[in-house]
């Protein structure tokens, strides 16, 4: 047992309702304990698809006032509104949930002329999340958003009225927390820019992954290993411009005894990865789904201590901790298989995003 994770993507980029992912994750409720659940949806804000969308959790009005002021320093606010929710009796003590559509302001672009817009966004996210303002930016990408909180995932989904949104990719998580107490910002998915990640497991290498990331300016205020994995992806893909397949091999490299018997070029290749990126290796039981708006990927730790299943049906791809979660929304898939340890399952978008 442990948490459950699930994800669906339409390879043609066609939109479908969030209801599907709610039903999928709900099927695995036995793996959760009601202390945290959440979703990430891509393609859900077509009208504002060029704006950075921030979903923010506030403790109180004061934390919102401070954050509003900080955001205005670097951004032009296109839209600012509460995230729509509806009353669900199981969801109690909801914090203030707000969303912004933002453009990096011209003055910020001038001031940080050597940073990309993404880096300016990351700076602000790090600043707000690690400052003790009582505010947490839970997602910060374009045309995507993360919805999460304390409760079972299915309740959280209905609370956020996800069935009213349409997206081409959804990932979800239902939580059985063991390392940190259940709190709204601590639920999955974790997101930074377009990236979002759900994770079932616990990383025994967290202590060094965290310190490694801090060397590159990341701050990890949420005290969870899943956040560290997300930032590792961000570091490798965005800052070091590595392809996803290589980033994955850095996080979950082959074992030395496998590397040793590879032909010389491959041996050199993996040796370099392991030697240079030793601080990024993740150790410990994990099944992970990540999405970045262009694709959804799934993988497990090197010795596969957590389950993950992949299925495909037409243009749709599914990933889930258990087969039942896939069969719930796709009773007869064209193909269905277990994700192998050491393999990255990539489900990409082929067509143009609708």
């Amino acid at each position, binding site marked *: 047992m442990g948490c459950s994770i699930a994800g669906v993507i339409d390879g043609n980029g066609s939109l479908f309702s969030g209801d599907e992912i709610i039903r999928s994750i709900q099927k695995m409720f036995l793996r959760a304990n009601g202390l945290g659940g959440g979703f990430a949806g891509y393609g859900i804000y077509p009208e504002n698809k060029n704006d950075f969308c921030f979903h923010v959790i506030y403790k109180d009005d004061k934390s919102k006032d401070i954050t509003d002021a900080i955001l205005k320093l670097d951004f032009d606010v296109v839209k600012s509104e509460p995230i729509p929710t509806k009353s669900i009796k199981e969801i109690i003590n909801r914090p203030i949930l707000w969303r912004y559509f933002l453009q990096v302001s011209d003055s910020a672009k001038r001031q940080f002329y050597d940073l990309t817009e993404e880096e300016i966004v990351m700076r602000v996210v790090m600043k707000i999340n690690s400052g003790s303002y009582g505010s947490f930016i839970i997602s910060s990408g374009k045309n995507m958003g993360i919805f999460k909180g304390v409760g079972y995932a299915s309740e959280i989904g209905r609370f956020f009225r996800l069935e009213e949104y349409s997206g081409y990719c959804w990932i979800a998580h239902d939580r059985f927390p063991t390392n940190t107490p259940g709190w709204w910002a601590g639920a999955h998915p974790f997101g930074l820019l377009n990236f979002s990640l759900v994770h079932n497991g616990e990383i*025994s290498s967290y*202590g060094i992954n965290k310190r490694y990331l801090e*060397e590159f300016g990341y701050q990890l205020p949420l005290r969870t290993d899943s956040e560290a994995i997300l930032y590792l992806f961000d570091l490798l893909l965005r800052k070091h411009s590595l392809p996803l397949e290589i980033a994955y091999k850095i996080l979950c490299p082959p074992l030395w005894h496998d590397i040793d018997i590879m032909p010389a*070029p491959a041996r050199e290749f993996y040796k370099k990865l392991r030697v240079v990126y030793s601080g990024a290796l*993740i*150790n410990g*039981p994990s099944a992970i789904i990540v999405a970045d708006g262009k694709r959804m990927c799934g993988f497990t730790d090197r010795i596969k201590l957590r389950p993950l299943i992949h299925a495909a049906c037409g243009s749709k791809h599914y990933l889930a901790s258990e087969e039942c979660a896939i069969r719930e929304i796709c009773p007869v898939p064209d193909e269905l298989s277990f994700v192998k340890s050491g393999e990255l399952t990539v489900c990409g978008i082929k067509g143009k995003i609708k």
Partner: protein
Amino acid sequence: MKRMLYSPDYLVTRDPEKCIQCEVCVRQCAFNAHTYDAEKHRVDTDCSKCVGCFRCVYMCPTGALSVSEFSGRMANSANWTDKQLKELYKQAETGGVLLTGMGTDKKYKIIWDHILLDAAQVTNPSIDPLREPMELRTYLGGKPLSIEVKENKRKVSLPGADISGRFSITTELPQQLELKTPILFSAMSYGAISFNASKALASAAEECGIYYNTGEGGLHKDLYRYSKNTIVQVASGRFGVDTEYLNSCAAVEIKIGQGAKPGIGGHLPGEKVTDEISMARMIPKGTDALSPAPHHDIYSIEDLSQLIYAIKEATEYKKPVSVKIAAVHNVAAIASGIVRAGADIVAIDGIRGGTGAAPTRTRDNVGIPIELAISAVDTRMREEGIRNRASIIAAGGFRNSADVVKAIALGADAVYIGTAALISMGCHLCQKCYTGKCNWGIATQDPYLVKRLNSEIACRRLVNLILAWSLEIKEIMGGMGINSIESLRGNRLRLRGFDLHENELKILGIKPAGESL
């Protein structure tokens, strides 16, 4: 018998019932504690000469001898201990600097014993190292911060083709030292230790897939065959350093200082400079081998940088260059300077580091514990974003595999062991290495004593030690749910401090026991 003002350190007791007057003890004790009186046909013992090396106890065929601490106290004072008094009497007699060997025996708090390790329970399964792979392989040397890749033109398009066919990494990796387990043998020079001891270390390093360090005494011609597992040292005396020496190794280490005697040079007395040693050190036979306190061409960090690059030029950038320093108060800043000066490895030797000879006062009072030094250096290098540029080797009194695990979790890449290695060969820590009379054949050049150490047997014992520690490290890692040493390295969250002061916890970067994530 010479009249002395102080009591002996040890009491040697001979059971007259068991003693058969065979004179084994007489021959075994190089300190001449045992003598044979032919007239009386009696073996006698002068306890005041005994250094407590236990050689005679183990060699006596009838088990007639025992050695214990001399229990009579001179002054009943906590301040003026017998040890203090004896040192005062000795200095009053000789007017000299007190000398000693091995690491400090002072009762400093051993921080290792106040650090506790974590284990996995339920949520994160522990791993059985007997069933699952457990990786200890370690690479020492400078590493780039990131890599660049390019997509290959001719793609390998076989289904399931490995990504290493699709991409090439254009970044070059500087030369690395590959270790099967994160342990190396510390610098111990031929001269300070015997040829047989050196050979045992070299051959054990080869067998274990690790490295030994020549120390500053040059390289004996018979040890060139172990060059793949050799780190050669360049110290202030520059003994035995020539191009061949620099190229007969896997890495070169510049020795600035050592934990047992920070700021102090070395002195090998002329009588120990035998034919063989004179050849290895490239100095005339019988002359004193003096290592000045500083390198006479290094008076600043720029000078060090020049020497690092001079060595790199001489070795065509094919050998990692290490710089060894004693852990002194400002160790973090110094280490950072060393990395920026171009070193690929910084070796840090803590206050408990051993030596063949050192002034007692320096050995016992100068420097800081290695535990704090590792943390300070690792933290500093990470803060400055230069941790990848050099590896950290920690040294100074590692007693067992748990110490090693803790050192790595604090941030070291590997550890040097010296004293522990000597003990595994038979050393009994009598601290008399500087006399050259080591009864165990280790810290001596006396051919009669040297042959007591069989280098093959000593090698076997060293290999066993490394094997045993490696197994224990795997066991502990498995318990933590970690199957690769890189996930332990610098992972201070898996450590907790027990009975440590808040400031110590802060410098170590660990939480107190009982506090969770």
